């Protein structure tokens, strides 16, 4: 990504540090379409880092490649909503066939490579892909045919129909945050005149809880961080938005960046930070230019930088770091590792980031929406905020709704809204179930649509996936199981191995080769992964299985063979290679 220097108060190089290991590797990969061993050694030398650190970073993140990818590198989302299998046709297969290329293998002429990737957050835009890192949305069969043509004719992406790259932002239902488009600077001005101590009291009193999923009290977090001793403090905005089906942060970054940066600055004033980071998921790299401009605007308006709004001694800078494809980097301590230029392996907690975060210093990590809500609270008062929502869930929640409904998009509700209400609003008439909070969240069946969105009942970081009557829910489970196996960081045994085993056990059920004992085995495996793993990924990785087994037992029962034992392996298939090699097809060459 070429960075243009304009005549502005803050050079972009300070907003986006090209020397950061992740950025350096990205830039080199742009040139060579992969990162070779030689490159790794060179970068290690330049960065004065162990070769193994650079190698482990390259090998950790999905968007770094050891082997050259194609001149056109396409990553199709495999999400249940914006995925290539979301519709009737398997678009990935079709695209591969049209371009005569195998998934994951670069075509011999180096022209094209096609793979899949975890949800890219375009769930309201239909089947989508990243092509050379840029989202291309609304994929269908016609488009696939046209894409194949454009690739073969070597058309550059600017020559492709530009509406394919158009990301729209329909607000289907606004609320306190989405409708709040006051003049920039209001919140921060108020915070600074109120003073950090009282601002913190306001945040605490508002009852604001983290919007990233876990729902920890924001006021408490900031207070812990403020009180923690350290040479310096940091503010980190978690814009990793990796939970499949979540795209509200994408929207907020696009349309409410100013409020976000004000929220971060307010946090900085409260905890005493001079430096903040916005950790942007690699899938949203296309937003980088926009965010850089938005930051420049903040600087120009003196809402960032030195002596902010004339308050001598209040200096705060924000730098953007772009990830490279790893769901686990949404976990705050893994995110911090990534910020430090390392693989995103979650740290041992405690100590928590509030006392020991970025570079070992006290760090407040919050979700995009949390900062925006904080800015709102400071501007409008905690009372107004608390008036909305429920007892333990003050304020509103922005939902990203997608799947089998007529009006996917961004919705904001006061906490406490019933699932049924949401379904009515988004035009989901035939929902059999909704997955709330993404694969790590909760599956709610029709009989429970009276339940409410709140921390007390069904909580969500924003993902709201609608499954219509015709959805194959077992296929959804399979999709989720693959997601976790692919995204496990590999640090701890139960998650690293268990998520893979889960895929296999589920496949056996889908294939109709399983027996009742296999279901018990899945339950046992689920509880093992969830109870004994190291971090939140493992702790939630089997929720979807247990939910399905509980809510839709028939799905499983139907496919079960009534016998005591059946092998996990398909023995007849296990003879296929030998049959091919020996050209045999006699009776003895088969088992069943």
């Amino acid at each position: 990504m070429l960075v243009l220097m304009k005549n502005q108060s803050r050079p972009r190089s300070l907003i986006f540090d090209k020397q950061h290991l992740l950025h350096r590797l990205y830039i080199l990969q742009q040139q060579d379409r992969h990162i070779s061993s030689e490159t790794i050694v060179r970068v290690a030398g330049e960065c004065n880092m162990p070769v193994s650190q650079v190698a482990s970073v390259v090998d950790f993140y999905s968007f770094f490649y050891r082997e050259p990818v194609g001149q056109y590198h396409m990553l199709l989302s495999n999400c249940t909503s914006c995925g290539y299998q979301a519709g009737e046709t398997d678009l990935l297969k079709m695209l591969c066939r049209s371009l005569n290329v195998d998934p994951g293998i670069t075509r011999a002429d180096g022209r094209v490579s096609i793979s899949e990737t975890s949800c890219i957050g375009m769930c309201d835009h239909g089947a989508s892909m990243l092509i050379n890192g840029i989202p291309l949305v609304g994929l269908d069969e016609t488009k696939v045919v046209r894409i194949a043509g454009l690739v073969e004719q070597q058309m550059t992406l600017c020559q492709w129909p530009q509406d394919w790259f158009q990301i729209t932002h329909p607000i289907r239902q606004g609320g306190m945050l989405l409708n709040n488009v006051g003049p920039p600077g209001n919140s921060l001005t108020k915070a600074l005149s109120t003073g950090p101590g009282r601002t913190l009291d306001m945040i605490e009193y508002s009852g604001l809880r983290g919007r990233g999923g876990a729902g920890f009290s924001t006021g408490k977090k900031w207070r812990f961080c403020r009180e923690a001793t350290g040479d310096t403090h940091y503010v980190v905005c978690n814009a990793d938005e990796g939970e499949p089906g979540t795209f509200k942060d994408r929207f907020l970054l696009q349309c409410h960046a100013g409020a976000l940066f004000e929220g971060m600055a307010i946090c900085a004033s409260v905890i005493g930070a001079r430096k903040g980071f916005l950790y942007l998921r690699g899938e949203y790299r296309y937003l980088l230019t926009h965010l850089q401009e938005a930051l420049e605007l903040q600087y120009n308006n003196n809402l960032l930088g030195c002596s902010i709004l004339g308050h001598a001694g209040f200096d705060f800078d924000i730098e953007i770091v772009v990830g490279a494809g790893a769901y686990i980097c949404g976990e705050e301590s893994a995110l911090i590792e990534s910020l430090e230029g390392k693989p995103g392996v979650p740290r041992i907690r405690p100590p928590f980031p509030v006392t020991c975060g970025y570079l070992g210093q006290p760090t407040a990590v919050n979700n995009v929406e949390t900062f925006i809500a904080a800015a709102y609270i400071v501007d409008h008062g905690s009372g107004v905020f608390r008036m909305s929502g429920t007892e333990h869930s003050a304020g509103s929640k922005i939902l990203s709704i997608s799947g089998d409904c007529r009006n996917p998009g961004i919705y904001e509700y006061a906490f406490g809204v019933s699932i049924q209400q949401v379904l009515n609003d988004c035009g989901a008439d035939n929902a059999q179930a909704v997955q709330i909070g993404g694969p790590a969240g909760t599956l709610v069946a029709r009989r429970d649509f009276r339940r409410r969105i709140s921390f007390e009942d069904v909580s969500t970081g924003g993902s709201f996936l609608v499954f219509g009557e015709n959805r194959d829910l077992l296929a959804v489970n399979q999709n989720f199981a693959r997601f976790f196996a692919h995204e496990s960081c590999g640090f701890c045994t139960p998650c690293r191995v268990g998520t893979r085993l889960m895929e296999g056990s589920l496949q056996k059920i889908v294939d109709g080769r399983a027996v009742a004992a296999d279901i018990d085995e899945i339950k046992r495996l689920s509880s093992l992964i969830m109870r004994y793993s190291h971090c939140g990924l493992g702790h939630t990785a089997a929720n979807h299985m247990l939910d399905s087994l509980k809510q839709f037992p028939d799905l499983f029962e139907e496919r079960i063979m009534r016998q005591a034992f059946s092998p996990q392996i398909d023995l007849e298939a296990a003879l296929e290679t030998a049959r091919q090699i020996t050209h045999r097809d006699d009776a003895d060459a088969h088992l069943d």
Partner: protein
Amino acid sequence: MTYESNKAIDANSITIDGETVPFDAGQTIMDAALAAKIHIPHLCHYPGLTPAGNCRLCMVEMNGESVAACVTQAQSGQQVSSNTPELNAARLAITQMLFVEGNHICPSCEKSGNCRLQAMGYYLGMLEEHFHQFNPRREIDASHSTVLLDRDRCILCDLCVRASRDIDKKNVFAIAGRGIHARLVVNTASGKLGDSNIEENDLAAKICPVGAILIRERSFDSPVGERIYDRRSISDTALTEHVPEKEVDRG
């Protein structure tokens, strides 16, 4: 004297399986247990090295919560249970996971009899591997004259990484790759052990619990029947292990 005064501060104690166990500030549940000669199964922990918490063998129930003993600070009033049928069943399953994700053919392994993974299997009564084997293909590194790296048996415990970085001060190893593709890498331009400065007397060369890092020509030194776990249980040997003092000094 010191003992007396320690005893006096009975605020600093936890219980493990009903037994009162004292601890010093800063100690983990594992530290306290080991000091009291109580065995909580562990593979990725080795006293004297910073704990990592990756194998999950040391999972215990602490006031109703599952935590890894090796990375959880002891705090007064904690009631810990460890030796329960439920936890041992979980540990057995985790051990089986470690077996199936790698390639472990004990009859042909130089480490057999002295291997802590195998010994854990014995301790937990593991009769079979239970899960479907992954049969991964992993690289063997025979480039070094005295130290051999056979990744087939690596359980990603990170002990060699920590030993090399923190004690030997050589930083020879790291773990790279994500998820099931995690693997041990060598910190050299070629990625080969032969180009590193590891020596057979380094702690990193000796600490591997399994037969992944081996000192060459030292295999099968002791005959069957006289190897470590032919004679003793890991629940016994694990109580006396510690990074040798002189190594700590060196570090």
